């Protein structure tokens, strides 16, 4: 056997290892779902920016009526929640399912902070007589933030399902596809808020 015939199988094996290393976390179907969600929100965000350019004064007045600090608290809550979900996935990789469940519950606690603040924000706007019909800014504000809130609620259900499955020992640390898919969805919710917050509250 020549030396080259030995080298070729070795290099093929190395390439194969590199290919298997580059693995998409979670199910492919979840990533297509995430792409669809990102596209819908992109349309919302671009629509918001265009409307702001067409109604500069209304949007400036509307943004001034929003509670920027509550938006910042929600940003920190969602980022921290995502952080704990990332740690939970790490715990699952180390076959520490109970630890992962505790981290997921912590992530959900921060998500509850987000939901509480958001409800408080809506109620305080309602008390001022501001509704979805007030003007174009608040129509878009309520539509986009409520749509995002629905995704947070769905994300919490998904986190509950993967936490329950982890508690039941349904995941093996070499096959965490379902867990990874749920975690990826939650990070998408965080990613959307990262764009939504400065667009609606800050700039």
């Amino acid at each position, binding site marked *: 056997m020549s030396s080259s015939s030995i080298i070729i199988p070795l290099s093929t094996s190395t390439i194969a290892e590199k290919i298997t*290393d580059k693995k998409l976390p979670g199910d492919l179907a979840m990533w297509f779902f995430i792409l669809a969600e990102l596209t819908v929100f992109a349309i919302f965000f671009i629509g918001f920016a265009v409307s702001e350019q067409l109604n500069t004064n209304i949007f400036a007045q509307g943004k001034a009526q929003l509670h920027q600090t509550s938006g910042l608290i929600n940003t920190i809550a969602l980022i921290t929640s995502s952080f704990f979900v990332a740690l939970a996935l790490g715990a699952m990789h180390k076959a520490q399912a109970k630890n992962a469940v505790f981290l997921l519950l912590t992530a959900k606690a921060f998500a509850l902070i987000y939901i509480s603040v958001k409800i408080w924000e809506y109620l305080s706007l309602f008390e001022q007589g501001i509704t979805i019909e007030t003007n174009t800014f608040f129509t878009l504000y309520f539509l986009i933030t409520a749509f995002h809130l629905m995704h947070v609620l769905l994300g919490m259900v998904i986190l509950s399902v993967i936490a329950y499955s982890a508690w039941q020992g349904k995941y093996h640390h070499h096959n965490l596809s379902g867990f990874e898919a749920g975690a990826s969805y939650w990070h998408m919710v965080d990613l959307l808020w990262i764009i939504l917050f400065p667009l609606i*509250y800050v700039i």
Partner: protein
Amino acid sequence: MLNNKSVYLVSYSWLLLIALSIIAVYMDNVIGDRSLYIIAALSIVVIKGQQVVDVFMELKKAPRFWRILLLSYIVLLPLIITIIYLV
């Protein structure tokens, strides 16, 4: 997979994301020009998005196509929004 080094990276990313969020809110006191402020705020969105995609979603270790797809979103969308605001 998150080893100890990755836990450190995730923690660093978390702190960076929080710091950038606070800076984005309060930097309007420092940057007077609105156009410059919009560019700065949306640039921060790009940095934060890259952190979420690469570190939290772990797409840095995923096939290049998916990483580029998600990173394109987080770059192109703020770019489009910036153009809308500045034109």
